[in-house]
């Protein structure tokens, strides 16, 4: 059992709604920090296909902390998954790459990792997503 939250990162393909620089900076920050996480190529497409792995990606099975999802607007993610038959637990946090900077997102995701002495990401705040 772990008190560290699971992380699910969405790489949002086929549209430029999530700025490419933001996606890359978040992915870079996660890989540089050496944390464990799940990464989906496009949650929208998986939801449309009702991909059975979606349930496993967001479930909270014997874990102390809820999963954190890095994707887009929380309302979109919640109802997207609902349409695929997957209910997001209320305490799941959705971090929005359309509105937040990579630095804000990574600070949130890695706060527990950093206190445990993992590598700092060194991500700068140079990338500003769409307003």
């Amino acid at each position: 059992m772990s008190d560290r939250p699971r992380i699910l990162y969405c790489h949002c393909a086929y549209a430029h709604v999530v700025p490419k620089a933001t996606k890359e900076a978040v992915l870079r920050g996660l890989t540089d920090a050496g944390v464990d996480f799940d990464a989906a190529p496009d949650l929208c497409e998986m939801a449309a296909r009702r991909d059975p792995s979606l349930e496993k990606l967001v479930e909270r099975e014997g874990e102390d902390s809820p999963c954190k999802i890095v994707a887009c607007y929380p309302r979109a993610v919640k109802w997207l998954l609902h349409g695929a038959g997957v209910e997001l637990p209320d305490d799941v946090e959705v971090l929005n790459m359309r509105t937040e900077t990579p630095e804000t997102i990574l600070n949130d995701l890695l706060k527990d990792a950093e206190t445990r002495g993992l590598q700092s990401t060194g991500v700068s705040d140079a990338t500003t997503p769409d307003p």
Partner: protein
Amino acid sequence: MVKAATNPNLRVVLYEGEGSSTLDADQRFDAMQRLLESGYSVTRASGERPVSRGDDRAVAVLGRFDDPDQLDTGLEADAPVHIHDVTDRDTDTLLNTVESVNTQVAQHQTEYWKPWFPVIDFDRCTNCMQCLSFCLFDVYGVDDKQQIEVRNQDNCKTDCPACSRVCPEVAILFPKYRHGPINGDAVKTEDIEREKMKVDISSLLGGDIYAALKTRNAKFKSRFAKERDEDKALAERKKCLTKLAEQFDIPAEALEHLPTMSEIQAKAEAAAARTAEQQSSRTGDQN
């Protein structure tokens, strides 16, 4: 053939836990990015924190392993696990390894599809069925509880958010749309007012569809038939479509496929009949 843009056959795990050496950060990033862009779901696992449990997809486990035959990743999977040591392999070779595992395990051929489809916010939806009446491609359906649902996502016309404009409750989202609130951003009071003003489906019909849905009596029908001036209605429809195209991002190709007045009316009547049926069965249940 499954319409898919991501790979439904194989999960890839970059394993860096016990019994392995870590990849360097650049290689980890490069591998993750290339695999995601090739449509694979990828998990980085070392035991540092929980990751998702396996499902019935095959798993390709890649890493720099001390002894691949003795490796115990601790990962749960209900399907075959393919372990590949990628010590001294570059990202191209790693990707080729994954592709060859995928070829062995693939159950589905996939076809490119941009995932563009509506999503309903059920905190807002009132189940009025306007969207179902409007969409001619049967993207919408009704579930066994007579609740609206998005049923045939891949019938949706790419980049067309037209149905979100006919929803009186601003309950239809397209997560990949550029602007709020249709992209899932919070709905503000002014959005509701604006959306209501935008496209009144009745202007496409040349009549009041809300009334049509509520009072499908003979009197209404005869008045509708008498008063409808085809030329006037067509001109109105054209004006409305031009407005849709210019202001609301409706692609020309999708506009060509927008339903005709009689098609909308037929679908509205069918939806109204279903609603009436639902109401009468509810009343029956209560009695």
